[in-house]
């Protein structure tokens, strides 16, 4: 009954989305404020219905209702509660429902915070959002319906893929979708602005909080996915340049560019067409990512339900939205007035530099990801474009960008003074070189590129924070607390986000200094790893709620011989699918980690061990975390929360009081 209720809510939600896609849009174009304002109500109702549908599916998972095909295929009665709950989106249909729910969430968000939006802008934006929602609701209902029943319900389900039975599943997809799908509302704003022909500073202020929110969650989602892959797959890798990873990186790159170009639009009323284009491209790339993940056209470790029919459906949605928005862009962009040129050495010039490099890097990732498809279509040859391609293209394109960040931060608007700005940065740069030299000394040499990367990272962190230090010290040491508090929150936010990028660069560069050892070990044997000693204490079976495991227990001792920890890497076999997975054993010291994974233990007498010492590896994820904290600070900045100044008189007549 509850499942049918959810199914019905989904269909009703589709109908409301169709209403939202037509009436408010029509009202906005015709200048009918009452019809345009209906968009807000429709968006709220649509969200409520989809939340109901989602709750119904969640309920089916929690009570293990195996008469629902989707639950049968992806759940098991013995599964711990958290995975029953997060398993809702651990499969194609459920995750598409989450996708549409988040789409509705952003529409509802705009409806709630719409008081200061002009009526026509609100109607047009929510209308476009309704169009997207209609397309994806149709996809859910007709091609990936999670509410389908089975005539003869089985007693037990087929279980969730064991790799997904991890707290990571509870966090990573929702965050990633919030980011991916969050850009939909920015896209809708851009399309509305094109339809209404109004792109100005007020527009930049309108999209700012939404772009930031999407960007923050996308950053966290990607970082979380990378961290999850690191500890779950047992390879110690954090980024594989897998097509699906690239699919999330591309909108992140253009979304980051959008975040910066919107600042130029807001402050200088320049880069109008470019900002609109970025908004369109960013969401188009999100859609492309959805298509790549769901259609299975590219081989990826993220094996999703490979179904040509679904792929075709999403491809059609993709073509309709990308084609439609670009046609709209081509037709209306020329009507937007350019904001004039500005000096290359200025804050806005630096932001153009940022946009140029981010877009070009995104282009490189795009080519690398889609080239195999193109080549296969043209010649039939099957190729794979792996890490070497991206290391040679995207990475060098990011280096000038990282180098320029501290300088851009110091430049003033309109006319900057590069020499004056860079005076203090020479000190940061020198400290970066010193840091790299110290690393080289500590590690006893090392690859030149990795050392340069560490130097670059240190320069970035110091350069980003130097601004805060400079402002803080202006009133003397005694005043530092008061001065720091007086710094506008957005300046602190920028400094932290840029410092986060620096930390990430250091973490990635430091992977060049990791040590890997592979050994077959019997109980009692020891292995030396960068001064640490690992001793295999024993091998034994472990029983979990829905798996059996063989675990090996290692004691870890530091050079002085003190025992630091017991690590228990294991090999689990899940009962439902009889599928083995690795559990790694990790020991953290400072920002570095000792990481152990074992291979299959066929005879129970010895284990194949893969042991790593990874210096400063945690910086890879702490950096993006700091970036997001910067984003959140910026989102909370009171100065920027002032509503959009009313450019035109409101269309709706105010009642006389």
């Amino acid at each position, binding site marked *: 009954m509850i499942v049918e209720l959810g199914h019905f809510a989904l269909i009703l939600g589709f109908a409301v989305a169709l209403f939202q896609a037509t009436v408010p849009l029509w009202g906005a174009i015709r200048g009918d404020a009452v019809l345009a304002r209906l968009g807000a109500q429709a968006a709220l109702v649509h969200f409520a219905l989809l939340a109901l549908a989602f709750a119904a599916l969640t309920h089916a998972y929690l009570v293990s209702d195996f008469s629902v095909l989707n639950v049968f295929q992806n759940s098991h009665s013995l599964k711990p509660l958290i995975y029953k709950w997060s398993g809702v989106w651990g499969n194609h249909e459920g995750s598409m429902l989450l996708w549409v729910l988040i789409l509705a969430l952003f529409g509802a968000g705009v409806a709630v915070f719409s008081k200061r939006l002009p009526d026509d802008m609100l109607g047009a934006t929510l209308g476009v959002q309704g169009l997207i929602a209609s397309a994806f609701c149709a996809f859910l209902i007709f091609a990936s319906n999670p509410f389908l029943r089975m005539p003869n319900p089985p007693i037990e389900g087929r279980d969730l893929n064991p790799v997904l039975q991890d707290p990571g599943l509870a966090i990573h997809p929702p965050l990633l979708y919030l980011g991916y799908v969050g850009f939909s509302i920015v896209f809708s704003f851009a399309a509305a602005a094109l339809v209404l022909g109004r792109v100005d500073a007020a527009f930049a202020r309108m999209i700012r909080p939404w772009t930031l929110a999407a960007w923050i969650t996308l950053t966290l989602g990607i970082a979380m996915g990378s961290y999850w892959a690191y500890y779950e797959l047992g390879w110690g890798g954090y980024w594989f340049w897998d097509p699906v990873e690239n699919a999330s990186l591309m909108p992140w790159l253009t979304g980051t560019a959008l975040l910066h170009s919107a600042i130029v639009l807001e402050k200088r009323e320049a880069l109008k067409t470019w900002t609109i284009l970025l908004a369109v491209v960013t969401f188009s790339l999100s859609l492309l990512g959805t298509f790549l993940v769901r259609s299975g056209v590219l081989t990826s470790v993220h094996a999703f339900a490979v179904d040509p029919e679904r792929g075709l459906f999403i491809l059609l949605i993709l073509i309709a939205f990308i084609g439609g928005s670009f046609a709209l862009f081509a037709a209306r962009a020329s009507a937007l007035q350019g904001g004039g040129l500005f000096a290359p050495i200025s804050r806005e010039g630096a932001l153009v530099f940022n946009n140029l490099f981010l877009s070009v890097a995104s282009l490189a990732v795009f080519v690398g990801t889609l080239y195999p498809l193109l080549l296969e279509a043209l010649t039939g040859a099957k190729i*794979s474009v792996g890490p070497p391609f991206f290391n040679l293209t995207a990475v060098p394109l990011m280096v000038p960008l990282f180098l320029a960040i501290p300088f851009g931060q110091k430049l003033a608007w309109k006319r900057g003074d590069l020499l004056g700005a860079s005076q203090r940065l020479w000190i940061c740069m020198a400290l970066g070189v010193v840091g790299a030299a110290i690393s080289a000394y500590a590690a006893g040499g090392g690859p030149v590129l990795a050392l340069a990367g560490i130097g670059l990272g240190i320069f970035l962190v110091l350069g980003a924070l130097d601004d805060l230090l400079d402002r803080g010290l202006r009133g003397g040491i005694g005043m530092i607390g008061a001065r720091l508090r007086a710094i506008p929150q957005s300046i602190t936010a920028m400094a932290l986000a840029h410092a986060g990028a620096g930390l990430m660069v250091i973490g990635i560069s430091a992977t060049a200094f990791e040590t890997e050892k592979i050994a*077959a070990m019997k109980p009692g044997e020891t292995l030396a790893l960068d001064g640490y000693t690992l001793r295999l204490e024993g091998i034994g079976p472990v029983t979990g709620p829905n798996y059996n495991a063989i675990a090996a227990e290692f004691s870890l001792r530091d050079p002085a011989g003190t025992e630091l920890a017991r690590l228990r890497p294991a090999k689990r076999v899940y009962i439902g699918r009889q599928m083995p997975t690795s559990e790694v054993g990790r020991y953290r010291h400072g920002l570095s980690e000792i990481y152990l994974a074992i291979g299959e233990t066929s005879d129970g007498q010895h284990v194949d061990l893969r042991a790593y010492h990874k210096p400063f590896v945690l910086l890879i994820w702490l950096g993006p975390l700091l970036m997001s904290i910067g984003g959140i600070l910026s989102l909370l900045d009171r100065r920027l929360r002032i509503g959009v100044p009313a450019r035109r008189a409101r269309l709706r007549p105010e009642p006389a009081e």
Partner: protein
Amino acid sequence: MTRKQKRLAMIGAIGLVLAVATGLILVALQDQIMFFRSPTEVVQGKVKPGEAFRLGGLVETGSLVKEPNQIVRFVVTDGANTVRVTHQGILPDLFREGQGVVTEGKLEPGGVFNASTVLARHDENYMPREVADSLKQQGVWKDGKGESKGAKP
């Protein structure tokens, strides 16, 4: 600088960056891509000597041999032809005889494929598309036999 000169300088700089990026991409596409080969293609000699490529197919049942120092040997087949593979390291969790596998490496003079990487998969039913295609060509694979059921989004 006049307005016109500024505009030219801006366009020139953007063009330069684009040119560099295009150059990098083209060079990388020349040198840094890997072809996917089936055992039949390898046996037919389609592989250039010293070329790094991806070899995919099924792990022949009963062919897996584990040797000391984490060296493993197995045979990859597409039903018509076979290639012997050697790899040093720990095999991924989902490596099984009779199932699909994709390996990366180079062919050694003796005709043995030295795999530097054996690719991991996330799902036990998942069949890499290239492997499925090459097996279909040999008539070993039929549609629907190994459909994939859900995995990481």
